[in-house]
């Protein structure tokens, strides 16, 4: 009776641990749902089970099944026929009983390794728990009474031996049980469940990435707008105010002092020129006109023309990259070139831009002194965040002595090449 109770409890506990709903809250009917694929919510439970399945090994070998042998031997020792029949039985009966049980165990081991291992795991856990129970509670007065029908002696072997044996069995059981459960889960779950679980895991990761990059993208966009606002405010706007003031002053002076008025008008013209320069620089920083006109390949060629370093170009894009991606890559290459010109002491820089297998790859290699720390400047970090919005990555390799390589990769498709409009 007691044996059966402990076994049931163990299975119940395992089922309880396994069975959780989507938010990780335990639900007692989880195991039931595993067996009933059509029930509502079953898909989720199966997916969660499959996820757990993926965390360890599920294979059952003969070695695992053979663990049933010590379990049977120990059980027979512990629970002789008297425990099963409830009375003292003779020597021949015991032999027959032992042989029958041993034969059944052997048949099970060779017919179904999985179920033999399952039984072994359950047995190991129960026997281990039993060993500890005896070790801890045997000296408690009155406890032995409940077990007196199981044990002929009032006091078994030394208690530490029971504890040691219990620990060993528990450890073996705990090692075997998850493997066995995984095996049964693998049998129960269909490939689609496993796929679903893998997919769910991927999706979870993806959502985390998207949350982070969206956050970064919003931040970057806000900072960019702030910069544009400030540039306009301090630059073109201020110059237009000055322009208006000069013109107004000139207007007043026209009659009284035409020469001074003329000088003011000339000044106004200068100011308007500078306002245009400010706006031009601002536009270049927002979306370079050459990129809008010609696309990424020519825009990178234009960048190469503007750098004071000697350039070697390997640019080949048979189509066009969509606008936000090409802008991100353009600014990444621009930043890499600017760093090479500013810090590295390089003479030559090689720019490589190609698209293959759904990935746009850009690489800027200079022959400078190397030793650049990508974490030091904010430029490349900003570029990296911007690229991350498109699942792009930026890697910098700059050993002391050079060369410095800035590599950019963005997964993207190429559209057909832009055609001339006239």
């Amino acid at each position: 009776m007691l044996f059966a109770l402990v076994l049931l409890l163990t299975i119940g506990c395992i089922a309880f641990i396994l069975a959780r709903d989507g938010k990780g809250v335990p639900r007692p009917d989880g195991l039931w749902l595993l067996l009933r694929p059509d029930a509502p919510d079953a898909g989720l439970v199966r997916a969660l089970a499959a996820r757990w399945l993926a965390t360890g090994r599920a294979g059952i070998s003969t070695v695992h099944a053979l663990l049933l042998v010590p379990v049977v031997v120990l059980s027979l020792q512990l629970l002789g026929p008297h425990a099963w029949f409830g009375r003292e039985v003779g020597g021949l009966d015991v032999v027959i009983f032992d042989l029958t049980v041993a034969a059944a165990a052997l048949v099970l081991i060779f017919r179904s390794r999985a179920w033999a291992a399952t039984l072994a795991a359950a047995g190991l856990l129960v026997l281990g728990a039993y060993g500890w129970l005896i070790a801890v509670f045997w000296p408690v007065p009155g406890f032995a009474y409940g077990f007196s029908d199981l044990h002929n002696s009032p006091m078994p072997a030394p208690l530490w031996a029971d504890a040691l044996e219990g620990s060993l069995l528990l450890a073996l059981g705990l090692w075997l049980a998850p493997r066995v459960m995984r095996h049964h889960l693998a049998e129960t779950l269909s490939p689609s469940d496993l796929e679903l679980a893998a997919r769910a895991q991927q999706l979870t990761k993806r959502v985390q990435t998207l949350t982070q990059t969206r956050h970064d993208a919003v931040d970057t966009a806000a900072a960019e707008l702030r910069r544009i606002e400030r540039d306009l405010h301090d630059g073109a706007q201020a110059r237009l105010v000055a322009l208006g003031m000069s013109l107004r002053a000139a207007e007043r002076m026209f009659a009284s002092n035409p020469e001074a008025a003329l000088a003011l008008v000339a000044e106004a013209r200068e100011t308007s020129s500078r306002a245009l320069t400010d706006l031009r620089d601002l536009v270049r920083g927002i979306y370079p006109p050459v990129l809008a006109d010609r696309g990424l390949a020519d825009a990178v060629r234009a960048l190469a023309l503007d750098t004071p370093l000697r350039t070697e170009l390997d640019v080949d894009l048979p189509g066009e990259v969509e606008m936000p991606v090409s802008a991100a890559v353009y600014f990444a290459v621009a930043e890499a070139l600017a760093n090479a010109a500013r810090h590295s002491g390089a003479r030559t820089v090689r720019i490589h831009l190609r698209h293959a297998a759904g990935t746009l790859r850009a690489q800027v290699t200079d022959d400078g002194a190397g030793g650049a720390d990508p974490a030091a400047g904010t430029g490349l970090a900003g570029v990296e965040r911007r690229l991350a919005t498109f699942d792009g990555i930026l890697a910098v390799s700059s050993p002391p002595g050079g060369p410095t390589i800035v590599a950019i990769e963005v997964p993207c498709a190429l559209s057909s090449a832009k055609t001339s409009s006239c």
Partner: protein
Amino acid sequence: MRVVIGEDLFLLREGLVKLLSAHGFDIVAAVATAPELLAALVGEQPDVGIVDVRLPPTHTDDGLRAALQARARVPGLPVLVLSQYVEQLYARELLADQAGGVGYLLKDRVFNDEAFTGAIRTVAAGGTVLDPEVVRRLLGRHSRTEPLTRLTPREHEVLALMAEGRSNAAIAQRLFITEKAVSKHAAGIFAKLDLAPSDDDNRRVLAVLAYLES
């Protein structure tokens, strides 16, 4: 002098027409789109075409493409290209045929009408005019390399003005030196850059630009 204007913004187009009319130019066509511009340039064969880089229909570099196409059909057709920004890439494309009669200026150079009309006349006469901004960037590319590092500051200034397409007289006036001094500097520059000397203004500009673009 017969002029064709290609500019899509009404205010700027009218402004150009007024400005050039006031300076005695004969505006034979003022159009707003690239296809119209191409038709006018090829059909009218003006003394000079004044072209905005960005034109409809795509609002990218349609104007520049139209100008290049027109020059492909009518070799040496003088074209002065205007833009809100300058790119060495576009300058290179305009200069590629080595035929002269090319100008490339920022739009705000229009403010200085004397210099602007001067540039139009230079281009119409088959000369080359490049915006100081383009030249600055061209020189920037060579700022760290031999033999440009061997030039004296004065020679640098003269080289920049030569690359802009200015004549010896214009350079002399600009730098407050004599024409003879300019000639001397020019000879020095050509020797240092290992270029064959030339008295022809336009050939000299093209040689300098070819050198800087290499």
